[in-house]
């Protein structure tokens, strides 16, 4: 691994003086840099300097420190925590500090043991390279030098590092080349020639720069009705999903990773279950992207620091993920990143902070928790890249509040930095109303911004119908309070109709099972369902106002079938039309019978 950053050279040695789990101290560290990555002890455990005090440094170690002794050696690496970026990222599976888990499996077997070092990307893998720049071109940071067809879907653009400026003197030839090769040489104003490698390094805690920030205006379509229809998120937006255990955070994140409208998806399993990563690994290669028809794995990158892996690497996994996201954004792609769960990351901060004996702020979390959260979510956004293209990063973070209490610090601070809130409701989850996204607590600040897109791409009445539906749900919320006290039968029929229409919306539209044919529901299908429901509502309201009892309106198979419309395939136009017709026939008949009776009296 060659050094990139300008930290002092490598021939320096510190000495371990203190060990307490993942936090150690070392002396004789004067020549090391703050945040420098170090190797500790005979196993060469990877660590990072997190504070410096005269001759002494505090180091967080990314691997298990069992067996480490004092007076053992600490050596430097000359760079801060960095990962490799380049062809080979797509479809890969890394641990929190960027080690490829498939390579570890081959070299180490089923268990991950400390002190194993492997290149993140395979430098010997051969790629089909096409040069884009040519000798004589003036090259600046972010410009595309060459391209690699990384997957049938994705062209990987090899870009000049940000500080590049000068004339291109040599470029790689078209054809087969190894990942470890150089792609170009650039001569700067002082006549120095710099080589640009195909696989580059980037320090994960440093955001990659862009030219300009844009406002989000297009939805990140998820195929989840409650999200697309009621609480949409924009490309380049930020959202959080808080919920107690078992309320559906992970399933929702998996759904977004599967069906979300992005060119590259990065899924971070941060302090969660090993099996959930295995689940993705087994499913994504066989599931098809609904837009391209290609296996989902061809656009996915997985990062895992499962709950039983060392806690310091959990803290790093979030940065590893977002750095890869920025790298693909810089190529002009729409990238989505899911972090499950950001609470585990915050808890890793707390655990390390505790071992450092820092003064805690709320509930033991360090005082810098909010600023770390802000830094992370601010790395989302829609931008113009240095290469002059539009790219975006959509960030969706799961939050795991203890006891499901949304007033705890991580949820509370996260809410300050996101614009889309999908609150999971324990009672809905208990009733297996999935997704258990509460239509009362949730909100999206993007709804206005993306409405134009939905109106021109799905239906001009999109926004109007959305408003009507939200109105019904809000009224229903009040009506339900009354029902809890006195029962439904004593309510006036127009209120009962509101409650019934809300019942149809909840069970026919909002409810969506992730594990069946309804898993992906294009916005057009959801819109059809809502139109049927709202049409029914308006017509029924007319009848109720004429004094027709709601029981006559409700009790018909055609009305029961509204909650089964989602069983229809999205393009079953006839199915929807037939349902509509049967409802209308039924309502007309009820109205006619009423008129006849009145007339006969």
């Amino acid at each position, binding site marked *: 691994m060659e050094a990139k950053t300008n930290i002092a050279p490598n021939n320096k040695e510190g000495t371990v003086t203190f060990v307490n*789990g993942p936090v150690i101290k070392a002396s004789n560290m004067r020549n090391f840099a703050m945040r420098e990555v170090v190797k500790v002890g005979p196993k060469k455990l990877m660590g990072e300097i997190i504070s410096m005090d005269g001759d002494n440094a505090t180091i967080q170690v990314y691997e298990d420190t069992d067996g480490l002794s004092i007076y053992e050696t600490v050596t430097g690496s000359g760079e801060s925590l960095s990962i490799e970026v380049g062809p080979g990222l797509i479809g890969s599976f890394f641990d929190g500090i960027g080690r490829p888990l498939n390579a570890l499996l081959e070299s180490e077997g089923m268990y991950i*043991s400390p002190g194993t070092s492997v290149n993140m990307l395979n430098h010997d893998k051969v790629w089909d390279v096409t040069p884009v720049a040519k000798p004589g071109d003036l090259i600046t940071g972010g410009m595309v030098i060459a391209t690699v067809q990384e997957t049938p879907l994705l062209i990987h653009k090899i870009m000049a590092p940000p500080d590049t400026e000068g004339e291109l003197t040599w470029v790689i030839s078209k054809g087969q080349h190894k990942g470890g090769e150089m792609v170009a040489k650039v001569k700067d104003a002082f006549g120095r020639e710099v080589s640009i490698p195909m696989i580059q390094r980037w320090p994960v805690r440093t955001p990659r720069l862009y030219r300009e920030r844009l406002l989000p205006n297009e939805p990140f379509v998820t195929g989840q009705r409650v999200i697309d229809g009621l609480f949409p998120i924009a490309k380049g937006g930020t959202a959080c999903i808080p919920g107690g255990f078992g309320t559906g955070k992970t399933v929702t994140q998996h759904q977004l990773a599967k069906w979300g409208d992005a060119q590259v998806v990065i899924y971070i399993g941060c302090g969660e279950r090993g099996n959930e990563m295995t689940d993705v690994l087994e499913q994504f290669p066989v599931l098809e992207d609904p837009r391209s028809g290609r296996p989902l794995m061809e656009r996915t990158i997985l990062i895992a620091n499962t709950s039983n892996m060392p806690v310091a690497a959990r803290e790093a996994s979030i940065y590893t993920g977002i750095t890869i996201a920025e790298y693909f954004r810089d190529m002009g792609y729409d990238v989505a990143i899911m972090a499950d769960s950001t609470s585990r990351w915050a808890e890793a901060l707390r655990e390390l902070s505790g071992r450092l004996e820092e003064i805690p702020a709320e509930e033991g979390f360090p005082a810098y928790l909010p600023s770390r959260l802000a830094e992370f979510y601010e790395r989302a956004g829609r931008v113009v890249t240095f290469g002059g293209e539009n790219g975006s990063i959509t960030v969706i973070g799961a939050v795991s509040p203890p006891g499901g209490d949304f007033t705890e610090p991580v949820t509370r601070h996260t809410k300050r930095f996101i614009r889309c809130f999908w609150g999971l409701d324990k009672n809905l989850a208990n009733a297996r109303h999935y997704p258990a996204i509460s239509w009362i607590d949730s909100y999206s600040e993007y709804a206005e911004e993306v409405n134009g897109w939905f109106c021109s791409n799905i239906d001009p009445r999109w926004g109007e119908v959305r408003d009507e539906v939200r109105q019904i749900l809000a009224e229903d919320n009040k009506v339900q309070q009354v029902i809890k006290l006195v029962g439904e039968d004593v309510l006036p029929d127009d209120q009962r109709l509101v409650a019934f229409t809300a019942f149809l919306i909840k069970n026919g539209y909002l409810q969506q099972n992730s594990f069946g044919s309804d898993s992906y529901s294009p916005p057009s299908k959801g819109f059809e369902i809502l139109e049927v429901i709202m049409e029914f509502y308006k017509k029924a309201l007319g009848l109720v106002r004429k004094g027709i009892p709601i029981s006559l309106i409700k009790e018909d198979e055609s009305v029961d079938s509204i909650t089964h419309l989602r069983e229809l395939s999205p393009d079953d136009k006839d199915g929807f039309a037939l349902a509509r017709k049967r409802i209308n026939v039924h309502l007309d008949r009820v109205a006619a019978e009423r008129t006849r009776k009145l007339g006969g009296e």
Partner: protein
Amino acid sequence: MANAEYIGVKDIIGPFVLVENVSGVGYGELVDIRDNKGRIRHGQVKSLSEKATLVQVFTGTGDLIPNTTKLRFLGKPLEIRLSKNMLGRTFNGLGEPRDGCGETYGGKRVNINGLPLNPMARQYPKDFINTGISAIDTLTTLIRGQKLPIFSGNGLPHNQLAVQIATQAKIMGSDDFAVVFAGIGIKHDDAAYFTQELSNRGHSNNIVTFLNLADDPVIERIATPRMALSTAEYLAYELGLHVLVIITDMTSYCEALREIGVAAGEVPSRKGYPAYLYSDLASLYERAGVVRGVSGSVTQIPILTMPNDDITHPIPDLTGFITEGQIVLSRDLDSRNIYPPIDILTSLSRLMKDGIGKGYTREDHPSVSSQLFASYSRVQEVRSLAGVVGEDELSKNDRMLLEFGKLFEEKFLKQGKEEEREIGYSLDMAWEILSNLPRSELTRVSLTDIHEHIRKYTD
């Protein structure tokens, strides 16, 4: 310098001793501590600095005299010797025989902490285990390789349920099955119940037991589940057995962890439990699963008693965040004599989604279970309304729901402690009970399912 002996300790603090001028000792290393009568107890290095080494003493520091206490650093972590001969044996919380049958010989020694499984080595668990219990098989299906705890309360029949699962899951009696039982801080009677019931109903040769009883040293409780899980991994991944691990009571384990954390002067987190409780529990619960290319598996059923029956208490809460679901027992159902008193609404099996349905159990299983949850949750709403307005004021619809709720609890949930039901039988019963509901309530089952399974609509 491993194995050198040090005489005298500087301080004794709770379960810890502080030793000065020690060199060459590794973090987490095992220590033999000899008191002035020559008796040996074990300990482990908890932190290291230039000034002093902190050693946590298993079995506690009682009777230690600072000047005469001798320490020998063993240069290795806490280990357990694993072999086939362990089957049928009983050990204490530190893995020493407690059945008077002498040491187990042969085999190999491993670090009880284990190592994290590479997620790429795992295989997603999908094999349905028929426990013969309707509520579990239909609604919170147990999958081979799952970690599915029982959240219980003092006085509820969690032990009976665990034994019923273990025996009816056909884990016993067949050659490639084994049970590893870890009792942590439990009463003598509970321990006796488990060992007797399990051996009466199966072959006692398939059980390995680790017992740390209520009056055994608290600090050994930290090691007990790790001993059990190391054994389970060995039986599963090296001998190819399907292993069911029952660990009870996880609440005692967490309390031991808290006690030690406080003694070490750590900054506590919620309710005084250490900030690393989540990571620590995960290092146990994650030791379950199925590994690709290996024939055995480790299924975990940890049992915990919820302090004050409070599911938001940190112990059940953090457990629920790590395990693959939970089976929650309800005091209300128990007081109404419904066994097993499983509160299905708060119970969950996260792995059932891939282990049920066509090709696994039966095609209608996913939707019928979803419908039972939905309708039973409506029952709760109606019951609370009935509590306000009186049953007579309820609508026809609501009264049908109440009737459904009664049948569900009395016929479906309730069953004998040795009654075994096939999954097909349970599913048919579910449909029969559901057919008491008005059709508009059946929103989770498809129209096709309704026509196929509900008699009054089949024609």
